[in-house]
């Protein structure tokens, strides 16, 4: 027998934009008239690709268009894509909270979908009652929950509060309880949204570990959607990249390929400050941009990639005291470090100086940065000063900090040593 447990064929989903009102009523009537005459839906041919920031000509968009893939037993599939790429729509259809416009999905076995944890929790009910309630919403029978009860309680660590209404719980306890139920579903296919973004770090680890266990030991199939590339990287065995409602041409492939493709696709802004056509006299920057080591200009880097800052300076008013200063700032515009270099070393007669400054890999921690650049004559004047330019981001593709995603762990990876003190 084949090991395919999920088969997705030609799934598309169309949404109507705008208000529900007389306009949508008119469309509904038209659709109904066509149906009576035995014709196809008149709006199924309409609609365009779902590109958020483009003004649309049609009231209809395709949030998903012709999605096809299959999943084997035991596979962990990561679904990545930009906001609005259709990830959530796909999850909703898979978890049956909304239907597709065309196509079909076939699945084998028992399915649990976690678009949210703690669905149906009621503040007035006790922890124990909520475990039963939540479990049964997710499709467990009562006796199955009873069998798992001790495990869930232990996982959540709420023994003492089991008969207290959950509204008295701390938010952490509440979430742990909700996760506890979710983590113990005995389903063959598990569909998980970004719920893992909440909960504390230790718990996240526990939960990711639990998911991995689930697929390795029990042959469970997992579909996982997340913005957390590190988690996708650690967890998934394969991936797909959604782009404006369609699957990227790579199709279903290894996680490494997908993350690579995602990072490439998510670079709409190649960071260039080009001032060649502005009439500036005196010493000034004429071109600034960022690239990786392969010479690709971009603004999103992986944390373990070197970042090259290309600086082109025009120095008609040269003197030997001129300095170049670059200050890197974090997302709150707090300075991280500053570079000062005397320009006399690099100056050549044709008055254009081109420099490359390389920030080593695994130096800055994942996050958003921008910079301030300046040509100055120390103690006398600033010739050219540009603030908050060349914004770039470092993506976490599996650093040691990846499991503390939402914590502020500073802006640099420290090079430290640690020894045992035996005295």
């Amino acid at each position, binding site marked *: *027998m*084949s090991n395919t447990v999920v*088969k997705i064929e030609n799934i598309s989903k169309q*949404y109507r934009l705008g208000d*529900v009102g007389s306009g*949508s*009523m008119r469309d*509904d009537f038209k659709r109904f008239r066509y149906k009576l005459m035995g014709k196809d839906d008149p709006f199924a041919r309409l609609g365009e690709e779902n590109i958020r920031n483009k003004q649309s000509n049609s009231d209809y968009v395709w949030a998903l268009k012709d999605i096809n893939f299959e999943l084997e037993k035991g596979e962990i599939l990561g679904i990545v894509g930009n906001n609005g790429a259709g990830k959530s729509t796909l999850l*909703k*259809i*898979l*978890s*049956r*909270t*909304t*239907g*597709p*416009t*065309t*196509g*079909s*999905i*076939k*699945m*084998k*076995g028992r*399915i649990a*979908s976690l*678009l*949210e944890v703690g*669905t*149906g929790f*009621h503040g*007035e*009910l006790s922890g124990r*009652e909520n475990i*039963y*309630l939540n479990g*049964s*919403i*997710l*499709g467990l*029978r*009562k006796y199955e929950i009873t069998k798992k009860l001790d495990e869930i309680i232990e996982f959540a660590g709420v023994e003492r509060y089991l008969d207290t*209404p959950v509204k008295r719980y701390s938010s952490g306890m509440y979430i742990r309880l909700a996760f506890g139920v979710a983590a113990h579903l005995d389903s063959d296919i598990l569909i998980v949204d970004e719920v893992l973004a909440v909960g504390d770090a230790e718990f996240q680890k526990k939960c990711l570990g639990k998911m991995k266990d689930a697929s390795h030991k029990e*042959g469970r199939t997992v579909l996982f959607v997340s913005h957390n590339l590190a988690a996708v990287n650690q967890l998934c065995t394969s991936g797909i990249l959604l782009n404006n409602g369609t699957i990227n041409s790579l199709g279903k492939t290894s996680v490494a390929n997908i993350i690579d493709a995602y990072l490439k696709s998510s670079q709409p802004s190649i960071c260039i400050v080009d001032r060649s056509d502005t009439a500036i006299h005196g010493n000034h920057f004429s071109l600034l941009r960022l690239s990786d080591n392969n010479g690709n200009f971009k603004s999103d880097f992986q944390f373990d990639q070197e970042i090259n800052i290309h600086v082109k300076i025009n120095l008609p008013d040269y003197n030997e005291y001129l300095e170049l200063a670059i200050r890197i700032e974090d997302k709150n515009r707090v300075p991280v470090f500053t570079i000062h270099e005397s320009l006399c070393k690099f100056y050549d007669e044709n008055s254009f100086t081109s420099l490359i400054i390389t920030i080593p890999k695994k130096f800055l921690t994942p996050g958003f940065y921008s910079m301030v650049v300046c040509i100055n004559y120390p103690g006398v004047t600033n010739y050219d000063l540009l603030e908050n330019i060349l914004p770039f981001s470092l993506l976490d593709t599996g650093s040691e900090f990846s499991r503390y995603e939402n914590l502020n762990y500073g802006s640099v990876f420290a090079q430290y040593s640690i020894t045992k003190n035996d005295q």
Partner: protein
Amino acid sequence: MQSTVEEWNIIIKPKNNLLDFKLKELHNYRDLLWLWVRREYVGAYKQTLLGPLWHFISPIFSTLIYMLLYGKIAKLSTDGVPMFLFYNAGIAIWNFFNGCFGSASGAFTNNAGIFGKVYFPRLIMPLASMITTLIKFFIQFSLFLLIYLYMIFFKGYQPIFSIWSLLYIPLSLFILAGIGFGFGIIVSSITTKYRDLTQLVGFGMQLLMFATPVIYGLSIVPPEIKQYLLFNPLVAPVESFKYALFGVGEFTLNLQLYSAVCMMIFLFIGLILFNNAEKNFMDSV
């Protein structure tokens, strides 16, 4: 461990089969049904001192107001039944119908939050609400019974009464629940996209109460009005409910049959519409 069955057990398609009511799936989720009843019930009365006693208090006040308004001021006949009992029974049965209808008609809009996150048979929610309504009815009815017995033993009230006619009580409840539920899910299915009907239903329910012999007996209605009133399928179950308790009330077997047929039509249409709406209602709710 591996199942040897080579068939897909879940197939997701753009449309539901309208006549496939998925009763087996509903049966699989029966635990959820009871847990949800408990959730609704407990949730409503936690942290109130009187708890379910509130089910007593509101009908008592309504009954007293009705006695004053319809009994003392309008002087409507109660067919010789003590005023308190007559109005109290009417309120209990009407609240039951109204509750069944109200919870079913809000099935999609009230539960949109949960429906948007997890799939389970959507019918569970209105069914659970109906059971909660039934529990409330029994509490209110027990108050009625207490006063009923008090009137019989201490005030010398003698209802005309036969054991067999008591069977009309569950029959009435069944038909009223069916009509309320069926009509309710029709409304809830239609209102997922266009909300206009909710406005109509709001005051329509109030008017419907006056078109049903709740605060009066059918016997006092003039024949030229009665012929129209009898189109209301609620007339027979409400009248037979009173007949079972007090031995007064007018209804015929044909009228009962008419109500039962109406109930089945409502339920059938309701289930079809509900089935059609549940697939994509999250997109428009």
